[in-house]
């Protein structure tokens, strides 16, 4: 089966600034993929390239096996929710649904109507007077009602209060359960991603720092604490992601498929939060050491 999103040496340049450079990744279908990274890492650019709103400056991207900018048939397969869930402030909820019906090749009006009903939204209310949570739910309803195979959501919950956030994610997960739609979701809220995502991509400075199935990533990373020692003496099958050394103590975050045999280490598991932060720091430090690989910022 073809990947949900597959890129090869993908790059995007705005004037002199490269927002994404040499980005190669592949994420499978049928997953909820979390896309995480610092601001300016290229997450939104990647999403815009995937839905055909931008064209690549370099490399290639394919979405569900197709070219994102190839036309209406491809557009119908992908639902996109841009940052801050934009809606038309002066149009009513009902007019949004009507527009969805007119503008989309495939439109599930029963789903849209029942969803709006469940949410308790008034069809005659203008979108501009909805709460942030209601607006996000309306935007999600529109994106799902077009019956896409893939939903791309760019920081959909960033501006929402905790309750609205949870409700949004509940709706999203119900949609995944019922329709089997693939999802790519970017967020800074790793606790949310840990709940809903089964696949993770960490993007730093336009490059993939970490990618894989969440459970596998958690299972193959360990935090080791023990007496201070030379990191060069760590066994070759343990990849040190992060290390810190106090006067007498060393703490390492290592990646390995094998059990840790050295009895002098205290081994503990890591959270997704630990993992993402460690890889973000590692990638940032690597980029700082070799500036030609990092962002080239316009003067």
């Amino acid at each position, binding site marked *: 089966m073809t990947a949900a999103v597959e890129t090869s040496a993908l790059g995007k340049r705005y004037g002199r600034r490269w927002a994404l450079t040499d980005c190669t990744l592949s994420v499978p279908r049928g997953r909820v993929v979390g896309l995480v990274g610092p601001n300016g890492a290229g997450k939104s650019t990647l999403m815009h390239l995937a839905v055909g709103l931008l064209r690549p400056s370099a490399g290639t991207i394919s979405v569900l096996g197709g070219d994102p900018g190839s036309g209406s048939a491809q557009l119908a397969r992908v639902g996109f929710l841009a940052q801050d869930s934009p809606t038309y402030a002066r149009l009513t909820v009902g007019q949004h649904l009507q527009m969805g019906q007119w503008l989309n090749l495939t439109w599930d009006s029963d789903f849209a109507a029942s969803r709006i009903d469940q949410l308790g939204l008034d069809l005659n209310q203008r979108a501009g007077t909805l709460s942030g949570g209601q607006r996000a739910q309306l935007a999600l309803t529109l994106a799902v009602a077009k019956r896409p195979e893939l939903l791309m959501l760019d920081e959909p919950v960033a501006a929402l209060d905790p309750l609205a956030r949870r409700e949004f994610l*509940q709706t999203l997960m*119900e949609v*995944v359960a019922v329709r089997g739609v693939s999802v790519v979701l970017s967020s800074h809220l790793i606790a949310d991603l840990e709940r809903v995502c089964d696949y993770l991509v960490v993007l730093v400075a336009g490059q993939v720092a970490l990618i894989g199935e969440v*459970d596998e990533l958690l*299972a193959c990373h360990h935090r080791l604490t023990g007496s201070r020692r030379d990191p060069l003496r760590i066994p070759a099958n343990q990849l040190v992601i992060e290390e810190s050394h106090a006067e007498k103590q060393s703490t390492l975050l290592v990646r390995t498929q094998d*059990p840790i045999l050295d009895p002098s280490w*205290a081994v503990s*598991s890591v959270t997704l939060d630990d993992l993402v932060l460690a890889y973000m720091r590692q990638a940032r430090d690597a980029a700082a050491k070799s500036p030609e690989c990092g962002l080239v910022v316009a003067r």
Partner: protein
Amino acid sequence: MIDFHLEPASGVPTYVQLVQQVHQALQLGLLEPGDRLPTAQQVVSALAINPNTVLKAYRDLEREGLVRARPGLGTFVVGRLPRTDPAAQAKFRKSLHAWLRSARDAGLSAEEIEAIYRTAVRDFCADEGVA
């Protein structure tokens, strides 16, 4: 029927938490053969978690022979877990106490002892393939 809950900061993967909660319910007799587990959709709605996570947990339980999925009907409990016998617990606690005493008499600190214990449990689980 049981309700699942999550401890997000525990570092234990979500699907493992679900599996453990079913185990506990079986050990406590809250679930018995014939009982139905919540559907994936019910768990997803209640906890806002990925449906694949629920299915993964249920697959693990099925592999253990504890539940069986009946298409269109749901997932049902078919196996039992032994109720933990208090006498057996006491016996093993006692032998662990003896081991702890001998480690202390050998001059090991509490932290060292804990490190040894944790490492041993980890190695044991890795060797036996126990999660």
